[in-house]
């Protein structure tokens, strides 16, 4: 097994008496796309800031490329392409100045690739960042985050508040980054349909804890929606291990379930019910069920 790109162990972070990250562990192997999913304020950005070394671990360890991002910011940050939610760029720069400036920091900067992206994103190189639309600014940020083909691309809510066309550009960028083999992506989003399209792995974060962290396929296969038909009408839903949410009345009850189909059949049988219908869940439904149940 290769050395993991990111290895976080038992990370704890408190702001005042609010626990922003609670014993978080996460490993990201090279070549994977990790989608970080959670509500606003769940701790996604805090986690990403630890990866960038902008927050120092209070407890636990953070290793990126096997290095500590706090004590070796140069070594870590020069291999990371980063785009934040707000852009957070010096808006007095012009696009071509931003490119020239960024190029100096990264030995792997590819001028031709940068020019190609410039044309693809239809950016005016003479335009000042402050005069550009939010979407164009994000594209400019994406350009300088990608043009040196970083080993790790970190995107924090890259597409929030942007129009669908910019979002598609950003997703395309993620896909191209991993298609160049060996590159890794960590991105957070609350647009679950995007995550479902591009992620290999997902982590669902809630209140600073990681609820689920697994292969997207595994997560999808282990969640299903089923309709149970009971012999007698029930006034409230029965207890069933693995069930997340319930709805229904009388004899027919619908539930979301975490586990494999066979164990559900067995559990239903014990309750004297029959599984009359089952279907897969979209990531969004899984998220709602998991977060609702937690």
């Amino acid at each position, binding site marked *: 097994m290769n050395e993991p790109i990111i290895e976080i162990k038992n990370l704890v972070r408190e702001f005042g008496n609010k626990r922003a990250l609670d014993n978080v562990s996460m490993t990201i192997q090279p070549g994977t796309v990790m989608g970080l999913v959670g509500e606003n304020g769940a701790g996604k950005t805090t986690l990403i800031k630890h990866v960038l070394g*902008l927050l120092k671990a209070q407890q636990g360890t953070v290793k990126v490329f096997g290095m500590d991002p706090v004590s070796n*910011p140069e070594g870590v940050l020069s291999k990371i392409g*980063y785009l934040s939610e707000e852009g*957070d760029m*010096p808006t007095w720069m*012009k696009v*071509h100045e931003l490119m020239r400036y960024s190029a*100096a*920091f990264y030995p792997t900067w590819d001028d031709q690739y940068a020019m190609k992206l410039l044309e693809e994103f239809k950016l005016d190189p003479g335009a000042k960042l402050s005069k550009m639309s939010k979407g164009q600014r994000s594209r400019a940020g994406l350009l300088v985050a990608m043009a040196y083909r970083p080993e790790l691309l970190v995107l924090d809510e890259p597409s929030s508040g942007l129009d669908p066309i910019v979002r598609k550009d950003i997703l395309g960028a993620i896909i191209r980054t991993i298609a160049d083999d060996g590159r890794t992506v960590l991105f957070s989003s609350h647009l679950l349909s995007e995550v479902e399209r591009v992620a290999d792995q997902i982590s669902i974060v809630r209140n600073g804890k990681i609820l689920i962290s697994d292969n997207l396929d595994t997560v999808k296969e282990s969640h299903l929606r089923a309709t149970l038909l009971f012999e007698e009408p029930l006034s409230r839903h029965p207890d069933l291990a693995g069930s997340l949410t319930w709805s229904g009345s009388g004899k027919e009850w619908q539930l979301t379930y975490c586990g494999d189909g066979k164990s559900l059949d067995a559990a239903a049988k014990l309750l004297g019910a029959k599984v009359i219908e089952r279907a897969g869940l979209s990531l969004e439904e899984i998220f709602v069920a998991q977060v609702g149940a937690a």
Partner: protein
Amino acid sequence: MIAARTLAWSIWQRNSRWLILIAGYFVFYGLVIVRLNGTDNHPTLFAVASVFLIFCYLALTGIFMYQDTDVGVRGSAYPTHMFTLPLRTYQLVFVPMLTGTVVFLSSGLAITKLIHGYYPDFPVFWPVMLVTATLAMLQALFWYPLGVPYSKLVLTLIGLPTLVYYVCMPLADKVSELIVCEYLGLVILSCYAIAYHGVAMARQGKIQLFSLKPKITPARIHKQSKWLKFSSPAAAQRWYEWRQQGLILPCLVLFCCSIFSVEMFRERGYVGPVTAQGPNKDGLYPMVWPMISAYAPLLVFLVPVIALIVGCGARRTDIKHSDRTFLLFFGARPMSDGGLVAQKLWMALKSSLVAWGIILVQFMAMLPIRAAVWDAKTQVIVDQDTTIFRMLVSYLNPQFIALTLSFIFVVILLTWRNFIIGFWTELSGKTWLRYGYPIGSIALYIGVDVFLTRRSPGGQPIGPNFEQTVMIIWAINVLRAILATTLIWRQLRSGVLTPRTLLRGAILGSLLLASLMVAVWFYTGSNRPEIATIYHSSPNFAGSLVIGLTVLWTPIVRILMATEMLHQNRHRAT
């Protein structure tokens, strides 16, 4: 009327904290005037208090201009979101303008009246009219959608000195104050009209467009990038710092030079003898135009002062306003903490050098100006048709050159020191530190000044004597040395400071100290008997060491603090 009240209310709502602060300062200033009671006892206190009064008016100007865009904006700087208010354009324009005028007039008159009461020579009306006209002018200028980028800045730089000039000139020529005030009133009224026209245009989305810039195409960048590439990350970061914070000091110095130039190069007879050097080799003294003798030393003195103001935070910042952490862009630079600070120090040095370069050009411009030569023995002007350049040449000797060079070295060092003084407070991301530090320092200086110049009821100075002062300075130096050692120890352990950097810093520091001591030695040397006596002997090694160390410890501790604060704030632990 309701509209007027709503707008005035919104100004109050948005700036209440500042307005209260400013009002408080007005009261404080009034108390200072009352306390001084028409005497000359505390000139420093009076000067500092007055400088802050100017800052108050600058802040007020900002508030009434609604200035929240950058000065380079091509369109109107009037906030566009207000265009959607259900108000007539004249209300949008005249309410803030009138409020501003009323506030400026009433507060200004109250202050000048008060000062006039104690110092009968002090003028009452025209200074107030002048600041009011300045406000109206800036409002008109910034709200007018001139299509040229930075035209607002350029016009301000030209317009303000012109306005001041056309007030001072007539007054100097004994034109009555009433006429000057009438003229200023006219200026104010025309500014109202211009502002109205400008905002009306901006509200319809119109702009006076003049496109001058050549279009930048990808092909051009590609060609440029070949030779415009930065040689290293450090070079790129230096460029960033220069564009981010380095330009402000040269710009301000240029502004002062341009203001002074209006008056400086006017012939009004000669004053003199002006020299810090005694007579030249022919036993003659130089005489120059009065404004040159007044403004030239002022310019030299101004640069470190402006650097201090800029250094204390009057510049662009890398700190986010919302949560006081770094802009992620800045924090995520792949560069070590020490590297980031180093580039800031370089930027400060370059900024200081450029500022002094501007002063140098200004002084070069003086060289061909006519000067006169005065004979001390006969008490007559010998030659009226020499130039400043020829006069300087008559002084040239190795000692004079060495003295001049060491002076230039010291003032540049001082400018740089003043520039970097606030880095650590800014990088800490702590608001109270950032604003508290300069205010606290000024309060401390005033306190020390008052303490040192204390007089007994009989008028005898009762402050510490010279030896005691030296002892106090030494004690402070020891404290700083302890602080510096602690910081170096910490940073060596945490890896922020590498032994190599420390060694390089130590060598640089020693070199600086040596050159400082040489410079000090020149001043306390044989040609300065009056200073040399202070050190009991001349030239004095220990004396120059005291001064050298005292000057140097401050930047050393500040740099270490800056690195420490950057480290803390960039990788926050709490």
